[in-house]
């Protein structure tokens, strides 16, 4: 085989692997970007649905702000931090990007936060959970909008310990998100008088969880802390039931989305405790949004998809109030804003970038309790924002204690 043929082959391979192409925006436009997992394990949690939510928000806002057209760029980061960061940089340099919505994956969002600081462009993180985004990795331009590892742990772990789940063993996704989630849960367990027995770090996207589950069972702990997400969460819960592990250990979903519950089915997921930043069936406002969304996507929105709508609205309102897209002035408006919409009541963005709002501890209904399609959760507890997200830690340099 000669070199040119090989090169041709490689080039073809690259062409097929390239993600969706962004549409070029005019110079005068207000440009919003969305970098997310559009094809991998987290694609249902935000993905195309998140894109649709952002479009709905832009349309509801009227399509223009300050007399300028609002345009949207979208790309797939394929769960690779280098792709997310370089695409963000490219849009900042060449496409006049004004604000970026960060989709799933903490690793990618931590990398993108560094670009946000360097390029001075607001990054509103929706799908990533790692609370380091507003602590060690915080920037003056990061907003963490929907949930973080601290609030998830404060919800699920505290509730489980209070209900008798005193000893914990974790199945932890082996990257930034999993370890941060495990650490946050461990702290909450100890603070509430429980005990952490051990953990096993599982590579992301493992094809089989049974071996790790037997290790968890062998530990003698009575709670199985699932510090993972997406397909890994679903597969580990499915195997735990198959191997009879749930007879001796109570599973705790440290991060589960309604999409996961939908794919597992209530027969498998019933009784599970989880924490969510939003649920479609909370009140008339949430149901009204969900109805419009369902008509487009044929699924109920996840907390990320609802959050993407709200975040876009909040940003556009801040631009309108500031009378400019200048990042520092918009950030100042964002940190002054009161967020009252279908997503949050009395929400606000504090100095370290956390959007403080109510979080909900939920229990998954049994098949008998579920009365209509997607009727999956009952509210166990509503945590107010301060309780859920805790105080400012002081780890973020721009937000002293």
């Amino acid at each position: 085989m000669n070199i040119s043929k090989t090169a041709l082959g490689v080039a073809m391979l690259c062409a097929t692997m390239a993600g969706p192409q962004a549409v070029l925006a005019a110079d005068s436009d207000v440009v919003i970007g969305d970098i997310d997992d559009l094809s991998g394990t987290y694609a249902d949690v935000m993905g195309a649905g998140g894109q649709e939510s952002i479009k709905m928000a832009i349309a509801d806002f009227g399509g223009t702000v300050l007399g300028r057209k609002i345009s949207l760029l979208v790309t797939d980061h394929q769960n690779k931090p280098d792709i997310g960061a370089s695409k963000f940089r490219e849009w900042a340099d060449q496409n006049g990007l004004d604000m970026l919505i960060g989709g799933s994956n903490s690793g990618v969002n931590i990398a993108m936060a560094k670009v946000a600081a360097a390029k001075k462009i607001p990054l509103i993180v929706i799908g990533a959970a790692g609370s380091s985004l507003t602590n060690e990795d915080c920037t003056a331009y990061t907003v963490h909008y929907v949930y973080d590892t601290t609030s998830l742990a404060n919800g699920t772990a505290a509730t489980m310990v209070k209900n008798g789940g005193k000893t914990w063993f974790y199945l932890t996704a082996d990257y930034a998100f999993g370890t941060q989630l495990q650490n946050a849960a461990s702290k909450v367990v100890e603070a509430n008088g429980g005990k952490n027995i051990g953990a096993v770090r599982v590579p992301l996207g493992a094809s089989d969880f049974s071996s790790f589950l037997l290790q968890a069972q062998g530990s003698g702990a009575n709670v199985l802390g699932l510090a993972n997400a997406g397909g890994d969460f679903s597969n580990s819960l499915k195997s735990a039931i198959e191997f009879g592990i749930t007879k001796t250990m109570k599973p705790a979903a440290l991060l589960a989305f309604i999409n996961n519950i939908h794919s597992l089915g209530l027969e498998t997921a019933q009784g599970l405790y989880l924490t969510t930043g939003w649920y479609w069936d909370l009140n008339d406002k949430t149901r009204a949004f969900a109805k419009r969304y369902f008509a487009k996507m044929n699924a109920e929105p996840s907390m990320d998809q609802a959050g993407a709508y709200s975040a876009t609205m909040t940003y556009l309102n801040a631009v309108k109030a500031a009378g400019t897209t200048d990042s520092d002035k918009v950030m100042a408006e964002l940190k002054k804003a009161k967020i009252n919409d279908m997503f949050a009541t009395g929400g606000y963005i504090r100095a370290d970038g956390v959007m403080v709002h109510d979080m909900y501890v939920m229990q998954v209904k049994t098949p008998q309790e579920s009365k209509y399609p997607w009727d999956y959760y009952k509210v166990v507890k509503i945590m107010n924002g301060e309780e859920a997200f805790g105080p400012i830690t002081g780890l973020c340099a721009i937000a002293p204690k």
Partner: protein
Amino acid sequence: MTEIFGVPVAVILGQLMLGLVNGAFYAMLSLGLAVIFGLMGVVNFAHGAFYALGSFAALLGLQFLGVNYWMGLVLAPLAVGLLGIAVERLLLRHLYKINALYGLLLTFGVALIVEGCLQEFFGSSGQSYPVPAQLAGAVNLGFMILPKYRAWVIVASITVCFSTWFLIERTRLGATLRAARENGPLLQAFGVNVPLLMTLTYGGGIALAALAGVLAAPVILVTPQMGSSLVTVVFAVVVIGGMGSILGAIVSGLGLGVIEGFTKVIYPEASNIVVYVIMALVLILRPAGLFGKD
């Protein structure tokens, strides 16, 4: 309790069992790849996608046509195998005369298209396939609780693997297939329809992938990505066993499942790379693979 290297024997036996279950999937998938490579010289990157298609075919059959698990075990591989035949007839056969790299690129493209379509129709969260009632529940082996379904996977896979090995290495049909690989034009001169043999071989290899997909459906969530995460491991298994060696694919599939199982206990973080480390070692020490002929 007796211990080996500080690990209780019961735990070792349990992990051995689980390793065999995973190895059974590796063996079935690498077997299909080895058949397709050994008899056709095609590096079939679409194998994982057809494995996922097998799962989805079983799932759709169950949801919409009332096809139960046992019927699905036969019908899904048949349907997906026919699709494989269509791919071979329409696309792949044009590439036999040029470098094998083009076959690899074509099948890689097919894989992307299949996975993209599945994602478009079913989303990425996946769906659950229930364990058939006859195999629900678990048996207590003394050292572990083994779900009956997993035991069935080991039995089914080993049966299928060794039947395939027997068919190719020990029967007249198998001899003809191997002859077609050695010298197709000569065999054709004897009046054997070689292109038809190629088509059936590809269809058969794809059906094996789909069968593995049906077997996997009740164990893991059925998602469009289920194949792509597995296929690279399976390629490593084939390289370790020796490209094109049927027996090599089966033995290294089962063996690597077990080794991976132990890694999950000793050093879990490395469990997704241990297969590649072994592949590198094999390539250095025995480039043709453990069962390959130089």
